[in-house]
């Protein structure tokens, strides 16, 4: 019998937790309907612009996009007398094949099925359940990844900033719904899935992803992946207009 035994899972707490609030459905609607008289992002990339709007208006955001030269091109974004919803819509409309939805307390930007077929999109995969009990958000994200890509690991070590814990219990969620729940429950208010343009599939039949922090796709056995951002985090290298030093 081949069995794996979890040896030990030690929890270290060097810091306290911080309260994080997320706008409720009503609040999110109010934010999206808010009219802005003058808003100028300057030349920005698609995802960069959306992350800026999320930061500036405190909007939980989920972005699934396909890296491409057009999505990587900078567009000069500026608005006068527009609602936040109109700002988001107009950013997304600069690229063909994306749609905007408000769901689960999160503004979601998703590629059309022409770009990523549902059966090749891991975000659409249904999980039996997803639970995190007083876990640091970084650990909860690892737990979710282990459900999406089960592996028998040998060694595990997870570092965390240590300022956001989550309590979640979801029955039969899609991966997308689980990421939405992480964004709502934690201080990591933005999730980003970056599909690579190349249409090849992993051995499990899914489109490959890369990280905003590393342009090289991870090995197939660790595919797919996502990035979590806090409001106000430095813009990751893959989407930043100007090169930044990683702190």
């Amino acid at each position, binding site marked *: 019998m081949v*069995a794996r035994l979890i*040896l030990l899972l030690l929890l*270290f707490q060097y810091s306290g937790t911080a309260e994080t609030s997320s706008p409720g459905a009503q609040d999110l609607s109010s934010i999206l309907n808010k009219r802005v008289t003058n808003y100028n992002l300057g030349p920005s990339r698609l995802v960069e612009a959306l992350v800026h709007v999320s930061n500036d208006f405190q909007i939980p955001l989920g972005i699934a996009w396909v890296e491409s030269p057009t999505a990587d091109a900078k567009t000069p974004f500026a608005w006068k007398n527009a609602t936040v919803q109109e700002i988001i819509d107009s950013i997304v409309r600069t690229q063909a094949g994306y749609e905007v939805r408000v769901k689960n307390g999160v503004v979601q930007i998703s590629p059309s099925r022409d770009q990523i077929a549902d059966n090749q999109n891991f975000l659409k995969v249904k999980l039996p359940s997803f639970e995190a009990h007083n876990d640091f958000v970084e650990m909860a994200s690892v737990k979710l990844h282990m459900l999406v890509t089960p592996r028998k690991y*040998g*060694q*595990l070590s*997870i570092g965390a900033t240590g300022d956001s814990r989550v309590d979640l219990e979801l029955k039969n969620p899609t991966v997308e719904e689980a990421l939405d729940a992480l964004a709502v429950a934690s201080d990591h208010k933005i999730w980003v899935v970056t599909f690579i343009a190349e249409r090849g599939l992993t051995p499990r039949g899914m489109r490959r992803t890369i*990280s905003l922090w590393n342009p090289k796709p*991870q090995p197939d056995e660790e595919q797919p992946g996502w990035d979590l951002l806090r409001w106000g*985090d430095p813009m990751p290298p893959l989407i930043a207009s100007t090169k930044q030093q990683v702190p």
Partner: protein
Amino acid sequence: MSIWDSFGSYSPDGLNLQGAPVVTTCSPNQTNSGPCNVNTLSDGTFTEAALGACATVCCVGGACTTGGPSDVPQTWHIASSSIVQQISEYCEKILVNGTQVQ
């Protein structure tokens, strides 16, 4: 300041962990590498949320047994600095620099 961690080679490797998949702070995108937007708090502290291992040799005939150690250096990369600590893994415990942490 950014943080990420990486593991070196096991020696000795009583739990046969060498070559088994590793999960680190920047997994899955950058296993054993980084950075990946995990940072210290403003006072420089950070949390090691989990440290553990799985080994088939710890289970014999469906029952837990003792075994080990597998010793491996773990490096924490904190901005441009690094801290190396020695992890000693047994079926029943993990020591960090010779001390059992709980």
